[in-house]
C-alpha cells in the first residue's frame, strides 16, 4: 500500500484494486461460508432479552459464555412452540445456524429449536413435577393436616452434622424448652439423600409415643443442592406421612416440591422450629390470663350463690312477716269487737238508748203540755175578747128567742091539734085496744097463728094479752071448720 497523500489527490489505482471485491461480493462470500456450516447446537446463557418484538413477535437477544457472545434470533413460530419463556441468565441449548444480514453485515445465530439446559432444565423438570402432583391433589389445602398449636414432642429429620440441627435445638430451647426433640439423622444432599430422608420420615413417624409433628429441614444452598427436596418419591413420602410434616428448606425465596406437599411450609429451619410451639412467655401470659379467668369465674359463682341466698332470705322474711301481719290483723279484728273491748258496752249502749228515749219522752211531754196551756190561754183570751160581743147582742137574742118561741107555738099549735086527733083515731084502731077489750093473739112457732090447724098437740103456744103474755103447750086441737 502506498504512502498517504496529504494533499488530497489520490494516487492512481494500483494493480491490487483490480482484484478487489465489492462489499456485496465480500459479504455474500462470508454469507455463503456461514451457510455452508452444518447445523450447530450451542450451549450458552441468555442475555439482553427484552421479550418478543412487540410488532413482529420475533425474539432478538444475545447468547454468551465467559469469553464470547453472539446475536441470536428466534422467529415467532419457533418461540411459540417453546415450552418455556426466555429470561436473562437462562442456560439454553440452541440448535440452528449462522446467518449474515447483508444490509448491515451483522452475523446472527438463528435458532430453529431451543431447550433449557442446566438449572433452567432442572427448574423446568421441577415445575413439571409440581404440576403433576398438583393435578393429583397432593397440594390441596383440604388434605393438609392441622399442626397442633403446641407440639410437645417433635421429631427433626435432617442432617445431624450440619448447623441446622443446632439452630433448631437452640431456637426451641430459647423459645419453649417444654418441646421435646427427637433428632433423626439423614443425608440432605447428594446421591441417596432422598432415600435416607424417606426412611428418616418413616422412623420418626414410627416413634412411640408418636411425635406431634415432624420437622423436615435443611439449610440454604444452591438450586442443585436443594434438588433433593424436589424428588418425587420424597414428596410422595411427605404427603403420605402419618404424622403432620412441617418443612423449612433453604432460605426465603426457595420453594421445593416438599414444601408444596407438606402440611405447613416455613421459609427456614428456624421459622419451622418456631412454628411448632408458642413462646414460653406466651404460655406464661396464657396462664396469667387463665388464673384471672379462674378467679373471676369462681368469684362470680360464689357471688351469684350469695345473691341467691340473700334473695331467698329476703323472700322468707317477707313471707313470714306477711303471714304474721295477716294473723295480727285477724286477731286485732277480733279484739276490736265491742263485747271484748268493753264488757259493759252492751248495757251501756242500751242505757244510753234508754236515756235518749227518756229525754225524748220528757221533751215531748213538756212540749205537749205547753201546747195545751197555750191553747187554753188562747181560747181564754178569745173567750174574754168575745165576752163583750155576747153582752151587746143579748137583748136582740132575747127578742129573737121570744119571737122564735112564739113562732114555734103558732107553727106547732095547729099541728099538735091534728096530731091529737090522728092519735085518738090511731088509738081506736090499735089491736092493743082490741086486746084491752078481752081479745088475745095466739102465736105458734112461726108467728101469729090464724088457724087452729096451725097447732098440733105438744106444740108450744104463746098467747098475748093486752097486759102481758102466757106461754103453754097445746094439749088438744079441736077443728071446728
Amino acid at each position, binding site marked *: 500500500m502506498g504512502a498517504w497523500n496529504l494533499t488530497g489527490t489520490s494516487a492512481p489505482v494500483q494493480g491490487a484494486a483490480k482484484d478487489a471485491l465489492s462489499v456485496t461480493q465480500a459479504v455474500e462470500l462470508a454469507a455463503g461460508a456461514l451457510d455452508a456450516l452444518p447445523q450447530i447446537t450451542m450451549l450458552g446463557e441468555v442475555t439482553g432479552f427484552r421479550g418478543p418484538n412487540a410488532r413482529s413477535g420475533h425474539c432478538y437477544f444475545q447468547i454468551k459464555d465467559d469469553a464470547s457472545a453472539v446475536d441470536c434470533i428466534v422467529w415467532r413460530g419457533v418461540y411459540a412452540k417453546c415450552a418455556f419463556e426466555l429470561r436473562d441468565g437462562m442456560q439454553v441449548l440452541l440448535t440452528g445456524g449462522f446467518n449474515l444480514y447483508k444490509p448491515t453485515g451483522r452475523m446472527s445465530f438463528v435458532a430453529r429449536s431451543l431447550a433449557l439446559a442446566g438449572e433452567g432444565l432442572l427448574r423446568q423438570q421441577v415445575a413439571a413435577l409440581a404440576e403433576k402432583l398438583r393435578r393429583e391433589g397432593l397440594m390441596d389445602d383440604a388434605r393438609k393436616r392441622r399442626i397442633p398449636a*403446641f407440639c*410437645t414432642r417433635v*421429631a427433626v429429620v435432617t442432617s*445431624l452434622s450440619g448447623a441446622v440441627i*443446632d439452630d433448631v*435445638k*437452640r431456637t*426451641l*430451647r*430459647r423459645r*419453649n*424448652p*417444654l*418441646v*421435646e*426433640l*427427637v*433428632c*433423626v*439423622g439423614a443425608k440432605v444432599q447428594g446421591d441417596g439423600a432422598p432415600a435416607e430422608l424417606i426412611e428418616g420420615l418413616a*422412623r*420418626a413417624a*414410627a*416413634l412411640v409415643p408418636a411425635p406431634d409433628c415432624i420437622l423436615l429441614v435443611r439449610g440454604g444452598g444452591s438450586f442443585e443442592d436443594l434438588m433433593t427436596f424436589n424428588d418425587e418419591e420424597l414428596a410422595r413420602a411427605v404427603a403420605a406421612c402419618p404424622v403432620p410434616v412441617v418443612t423449612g428448606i433453604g432460605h426465603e425465596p426457595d420453594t421445593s416440591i416438599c414444601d408444596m406437599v407438606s402440611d405447613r411450609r416455613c421459609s427456614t429451619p428456624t421459622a419451622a422450629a418456631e412454628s411448632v410451639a408458642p413462646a*414460653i412467655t406466651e*404460655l*406464661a401470659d396464657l*396462664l396469667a390470663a*387463665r*388464673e384471672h*379467668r*379462674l378467679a373471676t*369465674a*369462681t368469684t*362470680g*359463682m*360464689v357471688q*351469684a*350463690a350469695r345473691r341467691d341466698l340473700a334473695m331467698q332470705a329476703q323472700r322468707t322474711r317477707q313471707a313470714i312477716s306477711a303471714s304474721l301481719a295477716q294473723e295480727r290483723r285477724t286477731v286485732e279484728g277480733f279484739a276490736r269487737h265491742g263485747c271484748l273491748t268493753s264488757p259493759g258496752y252492751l248495757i251501756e249502749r242500751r242505757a244510753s238508748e234508754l236515756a235518749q228515749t227518756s229525754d225524748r219522752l220528757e221533751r215531748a211531754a213538756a212540749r205537749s203540755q205547753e201546747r195545751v196551756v197555750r191553747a187554753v190561754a188562747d181560747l181564754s183570751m178569745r173567750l174574754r175578747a168575745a165576752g163583750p160581743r155576747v153582752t151587746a147582742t143579748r137583748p136582740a137574742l132575747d127578742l129573737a128567742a121570744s119571737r122564735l118561741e112564739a113562732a114555734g107555738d103558732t107553727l106547732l099549735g095547729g099541728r099538735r091539734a091534728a096530731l091529737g086527733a090522728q092519735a085518738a083515731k090511731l088509738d081506736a084502731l090499735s089491736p092493743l085496744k082490741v086486746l084491752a077489750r078481752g081479745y088475745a093473739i095466739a102465736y105458734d112457732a112461726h108467728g101469729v097463728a090464724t088457724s087452729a090447724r096451725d097447732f098440733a098437740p105438744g106444740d108450744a103456744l104463746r098467747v098475748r094479752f093486752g097486759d102481758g103474755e102466757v106461754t103453754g103447750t097445746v094439749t088438744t086441737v079441736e077443728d071446728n071448720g
Partner: protein
Amino acid sequence: MAEQKPVSELSYKEASQELERIIRALESGDMELEESLESYTRGVELLRSLRERLADAEQKVSVLMKDVDGNDTLVDAAPADTSDELKL
C-alpha cells in the same frame, strides 16, 4: 366429675387442657356451687403445677439411633448450648 389423675402425672399439655376445660365449665355457670369450688381447687393446683413446669423447664433432646441389631432406639443427647446467648 370423672376421677382425676394426680396433677404430677399429667403432661404439660394434659394439665393445660384440663385447666382450660375447668375454666370453661366455671365460666359457663352451669355448675353446682360445691362442684365449682372443687373445680376451682383443682384449677389452682393445675395452675401452680404448670407455672412450676414453665419455670423449671429443661430442654429434652434425644437422638434416634440404630442399635447393633438395627433397631431404632432413643439415646439422650445434650440440650442446645445457649452459653452464647444473652441471659435475660
